[in-house]
Structures are given as C-alpha cells and as structure tokens.
C-alpha cells in the first residue's frame, strides 16, 4: 500500500534489528546510576578531607592519615568477625556487579516479525493471550488455567471442572496455534499439565 517515494526512506533492517536487540536486553541504567551515586558520595567525602588537609584544617569525618595507619595494621586492629563479614560483603557486592556487567540481561520479552515496525512483546502479554486460548479450548473458567511463559518453554496448567474431562491435545493444539500465529521468536516448547483433581463451582 505504500507509495514509491516512501519506500526509499524505509528503515534499514539492521537498524530495526538493533532496536529490537536493545529492547530485549537490559541497559543496566539503574545499577549504573546507583553505583555512580555511591561513588560520587565517596569522592565528595575524600575531596572534602583533601581540601581540609590542603588548607591545614582539622579532619571532618574521616582522618585520612589515621585511616591509612589503621589499614596498615589491619588484621589486628579490628575484630576478626567484623573484618570477615565486611570482606564477604565486598565479595558479594563485587560479584553481583561483575555478573551485571557480564550476563546478557535478557528481559522476559519476545519479538514478533512485522513488515513495517519492530515489535517486542512482554512475556506476560503472550501468557495472557495463551491462557485465553487454552481456557476456551479446555472449556473451563479463567481461574482454572495458569500459563507460565519462560525463555524456552510454555507451561500450561489446567485444573479441570470435576467430572468434565479436559482434552490435553486440544489445549496443546490451541496454544501451539496461538504461538504460531504470533510467531514469537525464539519459539518456545509447550508443556500441558492437566491436574489430577478437578475443582467444583468455578
């Protein structure tokens, strides 16, 4: 439907792919801001002490020289439990920051191919749509279906109404059809679990 002149300025697929990739991964903005604020606080304190030293005033909160001396005598100047706990805390925080830096940080999102736009969908929306299809296929109330969408699997749990059997294959087919129509990438595996016991009065 688009006219000829419009086609020339179509966005390159590479730029769309980049948009989608950035949308599917965390930008690490929040931990960055937290780390930056903490570093700024530490730097401000050191700056203040350095300026006081430079003009020859008394230290304000932290005596830099005393701190250095304390650091030199370290294993003895402080209770072992406190030193151990503080070191462990540093290890844990450092490990977490390193993991934040190294791990891909995938968000629970999928992409749907589209000719004009780049489309990303939260896993929750996919799950909600699948739950509706599964509910219709199983003929049960919304509360009796639980759909969990993971990175590579879709788990459909159905609690049938007592005395009314649920066709697991029909549910699977409905869910597979919905997934195929949205053609989310990467395509997940489907697991349908029908509960042994039914429920009454839903």
């Amino acid at each position: 439907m688009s006219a000829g002149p419009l086609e020339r300025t179509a966005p390159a697929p590479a730029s769309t792919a980049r948009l989608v990739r950035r949308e599917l991964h965390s930008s690490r903005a929040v931990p960055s801001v937290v780390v930056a604020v903490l570093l700024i606080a530490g730097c401000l304190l050191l700056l203040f002490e350095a300026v006081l030293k430079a003009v020859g005033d008394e230290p304000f909160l932290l005596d830099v020289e005393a701190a250095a001396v304390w650091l030199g005598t370290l294993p003895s100047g402080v209770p072992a439990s406190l030193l151990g706990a503080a070191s462990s805390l540093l290890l844990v925080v450092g490990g977490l920051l390193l993991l934040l830096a190294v791990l891909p940080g995938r968000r629970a999102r999928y992409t749907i191919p589209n000719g004009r736009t780049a489309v990303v969908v939260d896993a929750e929306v996919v799950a909600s749509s699948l739950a509706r299809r599964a509910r219709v296929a199983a003929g049960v109330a919304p509360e009796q279906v639980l759909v969990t969408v993971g990175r590579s699997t879709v788990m459909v749990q159905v609690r049938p109404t007592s005395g009314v059997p649920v066709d697991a294959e029909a549910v699977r087919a409905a869910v597979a059809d919905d997934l195929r129509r949205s053609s989310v990438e990467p395509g997940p595996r489907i697991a349908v679990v029908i509960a042994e016991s039914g429920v009454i009065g839903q």
Partner: protein
Amino acid sequence: MNTTPRLLNRLVLGVVGLVLLALGAAGLALLAVPAVAAWWRTAAPRAGEAVDGLRTRTTLEGQADTWLWIALAAALVFLIVMLVVWIAAQGRGRTGLFAPGGTSGALRPRGEDGNGAAAGSVTITAAAAEQALKAALLERSDLAGASVSTWQVRGVPGLRVRVYPRKGVPPYVVAVEVSRLVEALDAVTGSRPPVLVSIGSGTRVRFTRPERVD
C-alpha cells in the same frame, strides 16, 4: 530507543565489581592466610615510608603539607564531574521533532508547478505525530492504554509506541493493528520513520476486566 551508553555501563560496573572483589578477597586473605598477614605486616610500613618520603619531597618551601592534597582534590573533582556526566547520559535521546524541515530527508511541499522545487519547508513536531497516533490507539477497545514518544535513532527521529492490551488480547493482532495505524501515519505525514512497538502489561492492565467480546 534511548542512547544509554550500554557498553560503558557494563564496563564501569565490571571494573567497580572487580575492585570490590579484589578488596574483599584481600580482606579475607589477611584474615585466613597467615602468610598474607605476615607479608602485609612487613609491606605496610614500607608503603607508609614511601608515602611519607613522597610527602616531604612534594612539600613546597614554607608550606605545612604537600601540594599533592590539592592535586588529589582536583582529580576527585574531575572524577565527580565524569560520574555526573555518566548519570546524565542514561536514558537520553528524546527529540521534539518528528520530521525536521530543511535539507536532507525533509518534507517538501509541492509548488504550484508540482515539481517539488518550491521554496519553504514543513516541520512536523514530535507532539503532533505522537498525539495523532495516541488518539488513534486510544479509540481501540482492546487497548487499556498507550503512550507514544519520539526518539533520535541513529540520527533520524523514530517513534516508540508502548501499548497495553487488555488481558487475553492476542499480541499478534495488536502488532498488526498498530502497524496499520503507523502506516496510516506514514501516509499522512509522508515520512517513514523507524518505529518500535512495545506491547506490555502494566498494573493498570492487571486490574482491568478482560475483554470479553471477540
């Protein structure tokens, strides 16, 4: 779609994490490994003497203390400025222009002769495009909410459309419908910006009733 420096974020987080890991490991080693504690007992005074020597050598005539304090303060000021710049760089990239008038890629109104060489240019602000698209989106009953913003994507303005469908609405239907509206906007404005459609689920959606009519 923002220009958050993702690589820089990860680099700085990684470096800070490594430093903290090293400090923590050093503390534990001092506590648990006698050899390390013995080494530190001899190394620390030597480091202290080295620092003292440096301070006496850098203390100017008639001054009480070393000028290194001033240098340290200047370095810290520089570091603080860099950190503030780093914070400010997060989430930037919004733009107020949807289709800037002027030279390349701009919309040119057809002149009387129809050859497109008329003087003047048309500028479309981001608010115009955003409100047009948002109004069209909010007319739909299967969407609980929508927001549209304009961002600079690789030098050209691009739209970010965030829609919140009601519970149970198939995302592929929403994707197709929103893309159709975007193509209508293309036809109206005569430009074809990159568009990102983000289909999400917010707290508002969770508390609304599911759409019951297909």
